[in-house]
């Protein structure tokens, strides 16, 4: 890492391309993306479907490696990391929140949080994590007994519980009605403000971008805009 880089960079994507071989044709999902995410930032990446935003999130989260370019987390290039190193990276540094929650159906809310806790060194108390998302009293319920919003809050608690530096949220409101979606965004914002977590949300929904101090737009695998939002709207006020 060179000396010119700002010290506050948590993770940086440099000229990353990603090409998928789909049978006999090659599809470029990312065509040279540069993105710097500062420590403690709240960032929304918006783009239509097929813009490559999920691919970008996968690179940030250590779920995949770029075809070219690098993804540097605290001085380590994830593009050159082994499977094992990526596994450890996800385990220690990243909390994921998915569109479809991805809770384990045979485990209760509390147990789903425990899953994340059991493989890390200094986790939060699972019940405390559930308390933070306001679901302490639903700890013993199975996913099938929870509403969509509740399930997503359990997923957020799970993402928090391993005490990660970076929270990556892939369409976190995509499977929820708008009222519930606002609550979930509010929760994410709150956690960012209170716990100083770095949060990256990707969405195709431009309305959501209004809550973020910084918005990155992605079209056809390229960053088309990267702008600061001087007056982010409170999540409870957005309409989508």
């Amino acid at each position, binding site marked *: 890492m060179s000396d010119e880089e700002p010290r506050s960079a948590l993770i940086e994507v440099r000229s990353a391309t990603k090409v998928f071989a789909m049978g006999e044709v090659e599809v470029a999902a990312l065509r040279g993306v540069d993105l710097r995410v500062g420590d403690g930032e709240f960032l929304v990446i918006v783009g239509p479907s097929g813009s490559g935003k999920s691919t970008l999130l996968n690179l940030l989260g250590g779920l995949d490696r770029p075809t070219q370019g690098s993804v540097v987390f605290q001085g380590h290039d994830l593009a050159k990391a082994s499977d094992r190193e990526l*596994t*450890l990276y*996800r385990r220690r540094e990243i909390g994921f929140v998915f569109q479809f929650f991805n809770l384990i*159906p*045979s485990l209760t809310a509390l147990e789903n949080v425990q899953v994340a806790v059991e493989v*890390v060194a200094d986790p939060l108390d699972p019940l405390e994590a559930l308390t933070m998302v306001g679901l302490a009293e639903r700890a013993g*319920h199975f996913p*099938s007994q929870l509403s969509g919003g509740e399930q997503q809050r359990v997923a957020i608690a799970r993402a928090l519980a391993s005490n990660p530096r970076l929270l990556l949220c892939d369409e976190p409101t995509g499977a929820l009605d708008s009222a519930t979606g606002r609550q979930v965004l509010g929760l994410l914002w709150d956690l960012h403000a209170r716990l100083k977590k770095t949060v990256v949300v990707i969405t195709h929904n431009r309305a959501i971008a209004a809550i973020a101090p910084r918005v990155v737009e992605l079209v056809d695998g390229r960053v088309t805009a990267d702008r600061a939002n001087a007056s982010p709207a409170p999540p409870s006020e957005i309409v989508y």
Partner: protein
Amino acid sequence: MAMHRALARKLARDLWARKGSLLALALIAALGVGVFVGMLGVNRDMRSSRDRYYAEYRMADFTVDAKRIPASAIESAARVPNVRAAEGRVQMGVLIDLPGRREPLPGTALSQPEERRPVLNDIFLRSGAWFGGRDECIVNHAFAEANRLKPGDRIKVLLLDKQHDLLIVGTAMSPEFVYLLPPAGGFVPDPQSYGVLYLPERFLQESADLQGAYNQVVGLAHDNSKEALRAALPLLEARLESYGVVQSTPIHEQPSAWFLADELKQQETTARILPVIFLAVAALVLNVVMARLVTQQRTVVGTLKALGYSSAAVSRHFLAYGVVVGLLGGSCGIALGAWLEGAMLEMYRDYFELPGIRAGRHLDLLLWGLGISVGFAVAGTLKGVRNAARLAPADAMRPPPPEKGRRVLPERFPRLWARLPFAWKMALRAIFRNPFRSSVGVLAALISTSLIVYVLSMVDGMKFMTRHEFVDVAHQDVTVTLRDPRGTEALSEFAALPGAREAEPQLHVACDLTYGAARRRVGVQGLAKGSLLYTPLDRSGQPVAIPDAGLVLGQRLAEVLGVKAGDVLELRPLIGRRERVRAAVAEIVDTYIGLGAYAEIGYLSRLIGEERSANVLVARTYTREPSAAFIDELRERPGVVGVTRRSRSLERIQETFDQSLGVMVGILVVFAGSIAFGSVLNAALVALSERQRDVGTLRVLGYAPRQVTGIFAKESLALNALGVALGIVAGIGLAHVVSSAYNTDLYRLAVIVGPMRLVTAALLMAGFVVLAQAILHLEIRHLNWLDVLKVKE
């Protein structure tokens, strides 16, 4: 079965996608079919070759032994009702002296006509020619081969205390000695140490002091069923009474025929039970796999129905999976069966002197094998097929309702539950929420384990029996058998042989014991009180105390006769004066030798009308192995008809164990392991297909593939641990059941299940489970878990 083209293509691709799982199932079915086709094939091959052999060489239906039967009396024997033919012959115990063998070998001499003509118990000349003169003999083929004797060689044979130098003119086999057990004991033939010689009739009559007479009548019956012979033989005995009848033996009790029939019966039982177990497990596991397949293809089923495919067409489609697995298993099973048939016949050829056993073509067996395989496999698909047929198209197009969050049994113990890591909670919930699948898993593990435990316990049981018979009970180095009982003062003469340390007399008397209507022929062993060289033990390992008077009966014999200690029964010895006398039952002991009976040697001597006498001497020598000088001296003693070294008998049995038992154990363990492997693999693959999304989630959360496999393995571990524990109990039970089923008059197999064997069985099972989990691990490593997470189920 008509099937739409597109569906046929779907079937082929679905099968291909699940090839590992279906192959594992086909393997289990193939083992079942292989055992069925192979063992029943062997059974038919041996049965038909036996029947042909018996018919062609006129195997006698009965034998009557007597002292001396004039040739003229044979005629009258043939006139007894149900007797079709009767012939006289001479049978005599001999000692054979072979160059290079330390001790003279026991043998049996039988008369054959000077000029070859068809007789009962005829012989099949394998090499050489018929007699041309007096001092000639034909030896049984296995004995000749084992001792490298061939026509043209000469052997020294002791006939009634006179040694003859006989020219071997031929080697032969006889239906009478298909399975020739040595007189020294044990369960296996020992052709190197025991032989049968055929001598010209007149020469043997003269040598046996039976000029113009015989000591055995062999005959054919019109009806040779057990009942008919049991009715006819007493009449025949009565007819020959005045010639000193010793005993009569129907073909069912003739040792070789008995053993062969027993073996055939066992083959048949095994060939019917094992395949059912294997095919049933395959069907149950297939049920689990098919139920999952239909759930997974729920929307496909809905779409097909929406497109206008009938429920019948959809059912046929899913039934076809079973048919394919069945056909695959069946045809592999047929190939396996052919191999098994060849391998088993090869093994049988080593022990059974049966000419012309070869693998026959049993088309009907092959069809049956294929048929039962398809039948079981189709039964295995029925549950899935029914689910598919019942799905209403509208329901089927919707995703299945989410997994119900229901508490399972172990959660009723909240304190314990709270302490469990989540992986165990997942495993336990999966187990309790899929009771059918879990039961199949436990059952398969139970069956595999019990088979392994049973096989190992059988080996230990046989080893124990051998040790019991040749080590714990017998302590002599050499056993000398005399033709007739002699006063025990003869003992001192043997005790003085070079190298002899001590010697003890025994009196072996075959007796008919009668109590009320029950009657049994048994060997009664007369032992000296305080005997040290031969100490019968009961089943708890305690020495059997020999009373001054009265008989000690084995448990089984007492049950057969219906007597208890204190009862007085009638005893008729088959040697000596053969007069009926009364003998009290002093004690009943629980021994391994089923129909054993013991008495004090002096008491038994008096029962046969003699002073204290002996016909067997057991001796210990200073060198443990009797010296050449010791044996040489014995050779010259008149009346000696057998010299057996204990170490030699033990070695021979050891050899057999090492040869054939190891192979059998290996095969059965692999068979049992295939059940465990196939079941565990399929259960794991089904669980993986249901919980792919969980795998993705765990991987995203930073779980390494090994850790994910570990979580899945817990379910398998729990089910198999239970299955193994139950299987150990079931295996011990099975060993006891089989042991009591074998509780024949011959012997009772000890049930020995050492803790190390249980550990071995558990370790073997752990190995099979680990193997299946290793395959699961590969699947998990290569699972495209990112894609799995992208779609909503």
